[in-house]
């Protein structure tokens, strides 16, 4: 019974003669020839790493396909099998989407990069050099310098430009409240990463003070960016977890995610993928090839692969 049902479905698909789904051959112990789908987001290191991993898979004899995707929405696609992997899952920015998709089933955790990440409020280094807020990066300095960070719509308070509210909810307003800074500082949610970078660029041109949400590794590292040092993070310190909400961000992880079928369909590729691990410095290198050396993403990936064979070759074994 099950068989015959299955047959009709297959017949329907074949009759469509278009479904790539049906175009599969007999299963082998080796990796399937159907392509591994890698998502392309909109920041340099992610794109270069996509081509780096893609190049690695191709070296192993796999077919690879790249697909542009929104960095938040991609986890739903991995879950559905439309995308195979995601290789830069940032803890505080994408952690929520990642775990949501995992809870629904269909996404697996494919290990963690050696790079540690930090996602935190901070200032461009020249703000410190100009001494716009004496005492930074210690957070206590914020108590006295808010006047240098006002904007027309901030009602006389200093402004923190936080990422979109969907990234961390009300974490930052709660922190300001908890630290007793709420009457001196206010939080503005930017619409996206573009807005953050634009703010950095225009503040620099104007020589004005700005406090911006940022992360590392990132291309802004090259220009110099200092993260504010808040009281250290510990388990349960956040308001939403029942804590007092004063703590800063933890050193975060950078994970890899995959569709649950990936280990079964492409066992060799999956093993390599789960072994793959990049350090902060290596990720910075990838980004710099594009951002600083103005290389094309694909060229950058090719160069990186050529330069770092002894790093990634062992993963493929």
């Amino acid at each position: 019974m099950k068989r015959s049902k299955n047959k009709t479905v297959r017949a329907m698909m074949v009759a469509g003669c278009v479904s790539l789904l049906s175009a599969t051959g007999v299963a082998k112990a080796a990796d399937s020839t159907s392509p591994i789908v890698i998502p392309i987001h909109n920041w340099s290191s992610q794109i270069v790493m996509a081509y780096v991993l893609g190049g690695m898979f191709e070296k192993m004899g796999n077919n690879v396909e790249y697909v542009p995707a929104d960095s938040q929405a991609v986890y739903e696609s991995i879950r559905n099998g439309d995308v195979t992997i995601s290789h830069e899952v940032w803890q505080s920015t994408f952690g929520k989407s990642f775990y949501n998709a995992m809870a629904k089933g269909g996404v697996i955790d494919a290990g963690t990069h050696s790079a540690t990440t930090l996602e935190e409020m901070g200032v461009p280094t020249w703000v410190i050099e100009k001494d716009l807020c004496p005492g930074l990066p210690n957070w206590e300095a914020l108590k006295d310098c808010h006047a240098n960070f006002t904007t027309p719509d901030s009602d006389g308070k200093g402004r923190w430009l936080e990422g979109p509210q969907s990234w961390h909810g009300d974490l930052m307003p709660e922190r300001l409240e908890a630290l007793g800074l709420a009457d001196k500082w206010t939080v503005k949610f930017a619409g996206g990463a573009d807005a953050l970078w634009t703010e950095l660029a225009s503040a620099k041109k104007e020589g004005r003070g700005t406090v911006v949400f940022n992360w590392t590794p990132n291309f802004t590292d090259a220009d110099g960016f200092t993260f504010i040092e808040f009281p250290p993070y510990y388990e349960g310190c956040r308001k939403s977890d029942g804590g007092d909400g004063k703590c800063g961000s933890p050193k975060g992880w950078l994970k890899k995610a995959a569709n649950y079928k990936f280990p079964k369909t492409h066992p060799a590729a999956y093993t390599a993928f789960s072994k793959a691990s990049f350090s902060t410095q290596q990720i910075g290198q990838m980004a710099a090839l594009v951002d600083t050396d103005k290389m094309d993403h694909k060229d950058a990936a090719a160069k990186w692969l050529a330069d770092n064979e002894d790093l990634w070759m062992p993963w493929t074994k």
Partner: protein
Amino acid sequence: MIEALKQKKYLQFILLLIIFVVLCMVIAPSDSNYLWRLPPLIKDLPLAINDSVDFAMFEWMPIEVYDPEIEEFEQKPLLKEVTRVSSGFILFMIELIREILLGGVKTIVAFMGWDWATDNQWARWPALPWTIVAGGAAILGYALNGFRLALFVGLAFTYIAVFGQWEPSMQTLSFVLIAAPVSVFLGLVLGVWAFRSRLVESILNPLLNMAQIVPHFSYLIPVMVFFGIGDHAGAIATIIFATPPMVRLTLLGLKKVPPEVGEAGLMGGCNNWQLLTKVLIPTARRDILIGVNQVIMQCLAMVVIASLIGAKGLGNDLLIALNRLRIGLALEIGVCIVLIAIVLDRLSLAWANKQTDYFADLSFKQRHKYSLMFGAVFVGGVILAGIGSLIFKEGFNYLYLIPHNKGITTENFWQAGVDWIWDTFFYSLKSFNEWLIVEVLLPVKNAYLSMPVAATFVLTMGIGYIVGGIRSALIIGGLLLFIALTEWWDRALITSYLVTVSVMISMTLGIVVGTLCAQHPKSSRFILTYCDTFQTFPSFIYLIPVMMLFGVTDTSVLIAIVVYATIPALRYTVEGLHAVPESLHEAGSMSGVNRLQRWLSIELPVSFPHMALGVNQTVVFALSMVIIGAMIGTDDLGQLILGALSEKNGVGNGLVLGLCVAFIGLAIDQVIRTWANQRKEALGLE
């Protein structure tokens, strides 16, 4: 007194305002006061939608499918299989065209499977040299409309190639070449159906309104859930966005066909099909072609957003460029998008206007002129590419394919331009910006937020009642009630504030500039071309310079909205003024009015109903930009829609938020449309 009130609309408005102000002062702002804010009774609606979509998509009617890759039977829900297979067809078509242009393996895989393609590495479709594609397109232009079009098309393609945007442009082109015809076809079918059946028309009408106003982000998530991610998903989202104007214009055109023409067709012995295809549709051609133009514009306007759910090509590159603040590069990409739009528009127009010559007794050479020309171009292109491979021994063969971002670039020039603008204007703009925010925007925003919900209802429904009677009042009330019962009323107020301010600015700009331009046919044509261009030019590009100048503030959001929303204001003003009958001009001149008087007392009142529809479109455009404004940073509905992309119940949230935005638009639409129709009737313009 009561009699006077019945007669004089302005008295009614004054009374309404008084009641409104009194209500605002009397009602205390408190969460437990239902006159201040309604309880969020339908807070759980998004979740319910979400659950039902999940159920339909992932649980309903599971079928057993054997997955040979993991050698297991899997439960696959029926709906998902159906949507995936059907969207697979669209994907196949896109890939087919793409691989004709750029080469690849997908088409071969579709027939032979990945195993075969992997074992036979030679089986790769080669890309066409760009010279052949550009030449072929130019020949097409020549065949359709002569030398000038050929030159334009050829140059446009050459620009794209030379500036190193060939590959993404062809990816985008292949995607549009599927999405646009499908939209046109769907639009025609639905339009004809609505023309045939009143029932269908009355069902379709509100749906079309909604599809136009609901921000495209709202249906990105459902599309992604139903159809997955990739070019096909992008194409489907684009089709949803581009079809409504086609339906509308088809219906409009068909309705305008004089009944006698239809009867002439019948008497000529047409059956239903012939009547439709040979008489009605061709006669309605003017409007239908405007529909095609709109489809093409909408398709390219969606290129960037479609890339968020997997459409390859220029849109994705643009987002990447912007993320690095490379405005010059983004601008070059934007120009490519606009060029593709114009090329497609001109070619389709020329094709529709093509005439057959029955008398020419053609020789073989003449009859196959274009095929022969293409043959020559093909051979020439191959030879050139061959020569190229000899010249450019190392690196890239520029006569075959100019690789991505390896062409010439004017990026530095534009970057310098942006810097120049910054250096020149920043400080003067800064004080203006501060003044605007402190003196205008913040007070208006606060005023909106301090309206009790009861007062808002009285005001809006009252306006509806005065303008359109009890029906309008109830419609508006119903639409707003939906919003008031969600938990997003305050955010909707902020959206309304942004829309109100930007629509006012856009309308002022549009009417003033439009009137000036309408005085002269040349300037009219110029401004209409400008409208077309800016409608397709990705708004994302100017977000960054605007943010540079005005910061992450509401001013930037407003400017982004205004740039886009002024387009319909301009267009409808120019068109409205042109529609003023010549006899009225003459009558005016005879009674000795001067230019300004003529404008104020004749042209403006007569064209006002048409302009009012412009207000309508301006509102629609402004609402659809709310989401783009959210990319700068707002605390309105738009930001939540953006956020919905990453949420667990994103589908439901996105849809309900989208509905909220749409309902604001529909409420305004209700008032303006009713009023405009009344005016039109009064002026005898219908």
